Structures are given as structure tokens and as C-alpha cells.
């Protein structure tokens, strides 16, 4: 009993360590120590558990743990930063699946039906399959549009989960538990499959939250304070990120999950507008004579891996021509929260030069050049002016206020929203067609 009271206390301490860890992540200066706090909390909890709980199969536990440690370290240290969203999606899914397996084991083990272990199983399975679909989409392995009748499918799948769940009143059998897990997996697939690529930051945050809540439910079932607190912490963090992202798109979670994206063609009133095409030489000339350049990266930069080329261009502009170069990042640029920040940091762009939406918007008025690389919807002025546009109300980076705007893009097509960007046809806009990395390198060569 004394040992178990001690264990309880240590679990509490490690949960508090995790809270400190997240707190320290709030500023770049203390962030690294945040990671150490989290590691300390984890080591404490694991070793205390191993010391107190006698196990019948230490060899099996050791093998599973060490094998995973090796794989995890290789994975975490050698994965490319550009495939970070995929890794996060996979980690969400594996975390959820681990909770689901424990819920499964608990349901078979307990003498009476426990709501919390079945909730852990359901949420865990859902998180797992949802994350796998997100992973496929991030890898561009599945890019089809929406499923037919996807809302009907969602209803059916969720109804199946609920029906099977309510079957449990006695001790669950292996068959019913498996069925419940399977129905939850299917529900995860039907819910995430129709959601498009640019909504991925929201989906990943949501799945992150769910993997936390699954852990919390397992905590309820095992009466484990560390699981409950940590799960709630992760859940709250994921929910805040998801809500932050939906606000940045002026949408809400409901429309992201259950509504069709409006693929309406912009009303050009039949007149064909012409966009002005620029050349890398034009861009180089205008930028080296500018006093202030603001670079706006989007998913296209990540897809082309253009961050190093971009950094190179920025340093030459700064050091050779004494141009004030700033980077502007929209909260939903890219495929996960903070995607652009990480890629720029990887290319060694100092974070003092990277600004968020509200910080940078007043600057566009005095900027000579806005260099938009692989971004579209987040700069679309229709979001401010056209109340009939699906983008209306979304906060945008006001690049249209800059003297000259360069768009590095493959074509004139609309962004993810399907809405045409009138900025492409503005007199002060020059289009640079082609691969983001190649164009940037060509400009750099001219400097």
C-alpha cells in the first residue's frame, strides 16, 4: 500500500512536469528546456511503475520497449523536416491505437462492463484510422474529392458505433469488443476521408486532441491520475490549436467536418482578364532596388522544398543590397500548425524576421515588394470585399497593399477554396509561373 501511495504521488509529479513542459514551450527561449521537463516526467513515471509493479513478463516488455526506442530514435532523428506533418499524423494515430489496445485488454479483463475502457477503445480506434487517412492525404496517395453521400455514411458509421456500444451491459465478449473497435475504425475513415488537404491543420489538431482524450479515458478506467491529467492537457492543447486554425479560416469545426467545400467558379462576368507575367530578371531587379521586401510562403514552398533557396535569396538581398526582408506567416499556411515556421527555421531564417498575421499586416503598406511563394487563398482580397465569396471574413495577409506583388505559382488556377484570386489580375501583380524552388533559384542567380 505504501508503495502504491508513493506511485500515486510520483504520477502526480510527472503530470505536473508535463504541465511545466508545455508552459515552457510558449516562448522560443525557454522551449528547449520544455522538452527536457517532459522527458524527465516521462522517465520518472516509467521507472516508478517498473519498480513498483511486479510483472510476469519482463523480457517481453523490455524487448517491445527497446525495439520501439530504437525505431523511434531513428525515425525522429532522420525523418525529413518536409514530411513533418506526416510524422505528426502517424504519431497521433499510434498514440490513439495504443490507448485502444489498452482499452481492449481492459474490457476483456474486467469482470464488469466499464464505460471508460470502451470509450478509450472507441476514441483510440477512431483516432487511429482518421490519422491513417490524414497520412495518406498528406502523402498525396489519396487525393480524390468527396465521397458520395458522405454525410449519410457518417451517420451510418456513427450509428453503428453507438448501437454496438449500447449492446454492452454484461461482460463483453471478444467478438463484441472487436466489432466495436471495427465500427470505430470505419467511422474514423468516413469522417476524415472527405476533408480536403488545406483543412489538414484542423484535422491533425483534432486528432491530436482525441489521442489525448483517449488516454484520459484509459486513465479513468485504470484510476491513473497521470493518464487523466496528461490526456486532458493534450486534449486541451489539440482543441485550442484546432479552434485557432478554424478562426484563422473564418470557419467552424462543424463546416469543416460536415459541409461540402463550395467549389464555385468565381464570377468573372464573362470577361477574360489577363494576368501580367513577370520574369525572374524583373523580380531580381525590383527586389534589389527595394528597401522592404515581405516574403509570404505557403504550402507550395513546402511542396517544392524551396525554403533553403528562399533563405539564400533573402540573405543576398539583406547583405548585398541592404534590403529589409521579412517573412509573413498566415496561421493556416501549410498542412499543419506551425508548418511554415519550422521549415523556415530549418533553413536558418532567424525567427526575429518571421512575423505573424497581425504583426505584419500594417507593414505591407510600406513594402516595395511582396513575394508570395506557393500561397493563394490566404492573400485573396475577396475575403475582405466580397460578402458572397466562401472566403469572406477570413483574415488575410494584405499583400495587395504592397507596391509590387510577385506570385510564384504553377498556374492561374484558384487555390484550395476554388475561388479565383483577383490579385492575379491586378496591375501591380506579376506572375512567375513554375516550380517555387526553381524560380527562386533563378532570381537568386540574377542578384
Amino acid at each position, binding site marked *: 500500500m505504501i508503495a502504491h501511495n508513493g506511485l500515486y504521488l510520483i504520477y502526480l509529479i510527472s503530470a505536473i512536469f508535463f504541465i511545466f513542459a508545455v508552459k515552457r514551450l510558449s516562448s522560443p527561449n525557454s522551449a528547449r528546456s520544455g522538452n527536457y521537463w517532459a522527458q524527465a516526467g516521462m522517465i520518472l513515471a516509467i521507472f516508478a511503475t517498473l519498480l513498483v509493479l511486479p510483472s510476469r513478463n519482463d523480457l517481453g516488455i523490455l524487448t517491445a520497449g527497446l525495439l520501439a526506442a530504437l525505431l523511434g530514435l531513428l525515425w525522429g532523428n532522420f525523418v525529413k523536416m518536409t514530411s513533418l506533418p506526416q510524422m505528426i499524423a502517424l504519431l497521433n494515430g499510434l498514440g490513439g491505437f495504443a490507448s485502444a489496445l489498452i482499452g481492449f485488454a481492459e474490457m476483456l479483463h474486467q469482470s464488469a462492463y466499464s464505460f471508460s475502457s470502451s470509450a478509450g477503445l472507441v476514441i483510440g480506434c477512431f483516432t487511429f484510422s482518421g490519422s491513417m487517412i490524414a497520412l495518406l492525404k498528406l502523402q498525396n496517395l489519396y487525393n480524390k474529392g468527396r465521397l458520395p453521400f458522405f454525410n449519410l455514411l457518417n451517420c451510418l458509421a456513427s450509428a453503428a458505433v453507438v448501437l454496438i456500444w449500447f449492446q454492452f451491459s454484461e461482460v463483453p465478449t471478444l467478438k463484441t469488443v472487436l466489432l466495436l473497435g471495427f465500427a470505430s475504425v470505419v467511422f474514423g475513415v468516413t469522417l476524415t476521408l472527405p476533408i480536403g488537404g488545406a483543412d489538414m491543420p484542423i484535422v491533425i489538431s483534432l486528432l491530436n486532441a482525441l489521442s489525448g482524450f483517449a488516454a484520459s479515458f484509459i486513465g479513468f478506467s485504470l484510476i491513473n491520475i497521470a493518464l487523466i491529467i496528461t490526456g486532458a492537457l493534450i486534449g*486541451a492543447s489539440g482543441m485550442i490549436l484546432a479552434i485557432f486554425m478554424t478562426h484563422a479560416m473564418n470557419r467552424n469545426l462543424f463546416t469543416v467536418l460536415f459541409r461540402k467545400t463550395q467549389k464555385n467558379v468565381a464570377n468573372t462576368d464573362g470577361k477574360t482578364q489577363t494576368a501580367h507575367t513577370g520574369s525572374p530578371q524583373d523580380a531580381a531587379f525590383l527586389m534589389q532596388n527595394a528597401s522592404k521586401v515581405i516574403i509570404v510562403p505557403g504550402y507550395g514552398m513546402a511542396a517544392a522544398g524551396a525554403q533553403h533557396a528562399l533563405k539564400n535569396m533573402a540573405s543576398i538581398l539583406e547583405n548585398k543590397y541592404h534590403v529589409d526582408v521579412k517573412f509573413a506567416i498566415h496561421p493556416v499556411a501549410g498542412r499543419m500548425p506551425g508548418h511554415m515556421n519550422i521549415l523556415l527555421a530549418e533553413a536558418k531564417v532567424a525567427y526575429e524576421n518571421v512575423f505573424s498575421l497581425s504583426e505584419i499586416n500594417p507593414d505591407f503598406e510600406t513594402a516595395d515588394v511582396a513575394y508570395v511563394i506557393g500561397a493563394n487563398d490566404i492573400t485573396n482580397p475577396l475575403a475582405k470585399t466580397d460578402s458572397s465569396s466562401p472566403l469572406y471574413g477570413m483574415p488575410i495577409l494584405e499583400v495587395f497593399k504592397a507596391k509590387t506583388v510577385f506570385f510564384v505559382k504553377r498556374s492561374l488556377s484558384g487555390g484550395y477554396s476554388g475561388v479565383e484570386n483577383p490579385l492575379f489580375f491586378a496591375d501591380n501583380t506579376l506572375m512567375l509561373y513554375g516550380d517555387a524552388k526553381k524560380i527562386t533559384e533563378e532570381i537568386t542567380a540574377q542578384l
Partner: protein
Amino acid sequence: MIFLLLISVFLLSCLVGYFVVQGVTPALHAPLMSVTNAISGIVIIGALKTAASAETFNIQEILSLAAIFLASLNIFGGFAISARMLKLFKKKER
């Protein structure tokens, strides 16, 4: 009674999480996600507990071992990638 206590802990922790995460700058949202991924590996202590109470080589033990494997993958993968990302945010001398 104990369930009510646990629910209270859960709700208060959500509140603490809310206040703590509120302050995280958008630039650090990616490391925040990877660190929370790593600490979601805490379910490993649940798996250790179910493994301890399982009979040898029955389904419960296999499930627990699989959960230990997955949770450890989260812990090590998550902390490794977080450390790599956070290194990028080191203050540089100009």
C-alpha cells in the same frame, strides 16, 4: 464518489491545459504538437499495469505488449523530433 473525483481532476486539467497552451506562440505550434505526441506515450504506464496483471501468453498480455511498443515509439519518436525542431529555434548571434 471516486468517479466524481476523477472527473474533477479531468476538468481542472483541461482548464490548466487551456491556460497553459493559450500562451504558446504560433511559431512553436509544431513543436507543441510533437511534444504533446511524445507525452501521449504516457499510456505506457497503463499498458505496464495491464501487462502486470495478465496471464502469460494470453490475449491481454499480447495487447499490452503491443501497446507498450506503440507508446514507446511515440515517446522516443516524439521527443527526438521535438529536440530536433527546438534546436532550430536556438537564439543565434548575429
